[in-house]
């Protein structure tokens, strides 16, 4: 069968197609169809020739096969040192073979490559920092994902995720109206306790434009309320755009580069339209990667920068605490031993390790570092989309062991994870392994310990 009805080379571009694919529970038919899906080898080779340039070809060619990347990979560590989990082997036997065979690979090869690209790598880029030649296998796996996506060999959830971005301009079915409604609803809910608080939509020339992860309006609207409270506390003139508010990019995990371009363009258009001085993204790692680090390139910006300064939430929070615009009640600082999860996307890949540590110095009395940490930290186990792919749930749960052991070694009972995927992975590892920890984003913690100036408190009798 050349192309399936659900599993095929076409990206999802209509709501109808998206709903049809979603209706196939767990992708049962989708994966069945994938077994018959033809590989367009000419297209594959053509794509490789156009996009696999000297950097990637050199990486594949000069790999010394030394195995120094093995221990750096959490999949290798958690599989009882299975040689088939060595990063160099994983990429050489997939992308390396595609290049070597000039794209002439078959269906079984492509399905195996898919299982490797999404089920055996979280694109955390740690292995690349352990290779003497500087061969970044995470970067190559991301590239491989793009090749696989273009041939239709992509996990069901990833195809849906990329489709969501194309259809709803967000990773979930949250429309512009839904989003604005949620803003109004959260502002109403919160206003009682925080008089004067509002969530301004589409305000031009604000000090700050705030961008989010669609999960927040969809499943955790209180996160949006918490962001509003902290902006209110800090006295920041802020706004959210009614369109272009979604900062994440499941299309990046899927390897759908056109959807990546579209998504980041929505955000950059909002920035141009509203002209804020600064853009702040929520506590998410891959959203920052997708929009601030990689996004400008997808949007074709030669300086590699967003149209305005665009920072991660932890950068803003560190600044507010440093400048005393948000003040912490010393009596309410975190007393229990706590540790911090370094997100690969903005720590290894964007150098923000000092900001989170600065925040910890203001809020925690017994802060403990994981080992290794900072740029050298391990992926939580759920990055690169792995958290969300049912087909690889077993593999995901297994690699959570690395983080579990790192956390246990600190003796911490609270793990602060300013990243959605890390937060999910740590929640799931607690469910899976019951090690008795709590986990949290920064926003609720900061609100619980911030000093509220009198003029921001509800007036006496207001809440009677």
């Amino acid at each position, binding site marked *: 069968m050349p192309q399936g009805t659900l599993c095929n080379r076409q990206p999802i571009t209509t709501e109808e197609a998206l709903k049809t694919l979603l209706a196939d529970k767990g992708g049962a038919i989708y994966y069945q169809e994938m077994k018959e899906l033809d590989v367009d080898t000419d297209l594959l080779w053509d794509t490789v020739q156009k*996009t696999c*340039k*000297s*950097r990637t*070809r*050199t*990486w594949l*060619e*000069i*790999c*010394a*096969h*030394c*195995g*120094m990347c*093995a*221990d*750096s990979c959490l999949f*290798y560590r958690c599989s009882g*040192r299975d*040689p*088939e989990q*060595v990063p*160099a*082997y994983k990429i*050489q036997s997939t992308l390396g073979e595609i290049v070597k065979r000039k794209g002439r690979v078959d269906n079984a090869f492509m399905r195996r490559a898919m299982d490797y690209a999404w089920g055996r790598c979280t694109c955390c880029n740690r292995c*690349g*920092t*352990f*290779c*003497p*030649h*500087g*061969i*970044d296998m995470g970067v190559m796996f991301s590239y491989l994902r793009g090749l696989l996506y273009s041939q239709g060999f992509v996990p069901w959830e990833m195809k849906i995720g990329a489709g969501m971005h194309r259809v709803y301009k967000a990773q979930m079915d949250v429309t512009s109206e839904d989003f604005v409604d949620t803003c109004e609803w959260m502002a109403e809910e919160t206003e009682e306790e925080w008089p004067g608080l509002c969530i301004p939509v589409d305000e031009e020339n604000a000090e700050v434009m705030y961008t989010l992860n669609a999960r927040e309006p969809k499943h955790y609207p209180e996160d949006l309320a918490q962001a509003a409270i902290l902006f209110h506390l800090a006295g920041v003139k802020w706004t959210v755009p009614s369109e272009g508010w979604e900062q994440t990019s499941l299309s990046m995990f899927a390897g759908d580069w056109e959807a990546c371009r579209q998504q980041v363009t929505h955000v950059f258009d909002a920035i141009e339209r509203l002209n804020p001085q600064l853009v702040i993204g929520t506590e998410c790692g891959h959203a920052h990667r997708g929009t601030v*680090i*990689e996004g400008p*390139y*997808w949007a*074709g910006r*030669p*300086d*590699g920068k967003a149209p305005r300064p665009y920072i991660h939430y932890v950068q803003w929070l560190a600044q507010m605490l440093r400048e005393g615009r948000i003040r912490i009640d010393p009596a309410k600082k975190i007393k229990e031993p706590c540790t911090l999860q370094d997100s690969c996307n903005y720590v*290894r*890949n*964007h*150098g*923000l*390790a*000092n*900001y989170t540590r600065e925040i910890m110095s203001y809020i925690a009395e017994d802060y403990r570092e994981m080992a*290794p940490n*900072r*740029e*050298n930290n391990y992926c939580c186990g759920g990055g690169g989309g792995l958290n969300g792919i049912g087909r690889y749930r077993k593999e995901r749960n297994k690699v959570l062991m690395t983080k579990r052991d790192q956390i246990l070694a600190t003796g911490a009972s609270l793990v602060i994870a300013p990243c959605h995927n890390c937060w999910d992975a740590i929640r799931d590892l607690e469910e899976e392994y019951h090690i008795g920890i709590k986990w949290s984003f920064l926003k609720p913690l900061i609100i619980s310990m911030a000093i509220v100036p009198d003029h921001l408190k509800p007036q006496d009798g207001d809440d009677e």
Partner: protein
Amino acid sequence: MRDVYSLLTGPLLGISLLVFFGGMAWRIFWYIKGLDWRLERVAYRPYMKRGLKGAVQSIWRWLVPYGTHSWRQHPFFAGAFFLFHLGAIFVPLFLAGHMVIMERQLGFSLPALPQIVSDVLTLGTIAAGGFIIARRLALPEVRILTTLYDYFILCLSLAPFVTGFLAAANAPGYDFWLLLHILCGELFLILAPFTKLSHIALFFMSRGQLGMDYAIKRGGEFRGTSFPW
């Protein structure tokens, strides 16, 4: 014998060196020409200065024995690696015997290593090469990556050292070892640009590029150009 020797150390040596240096230059040119700011998503041009600093730092840290996490995490392999490359680089460049040929062909030469130092470095390279081969066979995570090609490259690299050492030690069949040594060395030079040995030049490209990537896009503006390799 003399004719063969003259041929090997004359025109053939010239051709070998030409292929080696020309080939390596071509590989470097091709590498840089193939870089693409949009595909790699690295804005090389606007941040060239910061990028080059990152590149130099990335190369330097990995050239220092035990200078990176990764070297420190693999102490034995790192030891063998540096021992192997120390001899592989310094002996061919500064061996007294090579300097004699250089003087004759070019009219000048580089300072020569004392023979004892060359001998020790040569033995170090051979021993380290043996260790690297044994490691390939012994460790499952290395064995799975290893192909016949890897052994070929190792043999190609070690052959000039083994034959050269035998010749220098005046082993029985001196002439044979000497000619074989020269032949192996020239074969190495000729094949290097077309094989994995191109890493002699491309290591600096690849290592430098990742340093630029981290310095320009992946956090250089926050952590400084020096990534904690």
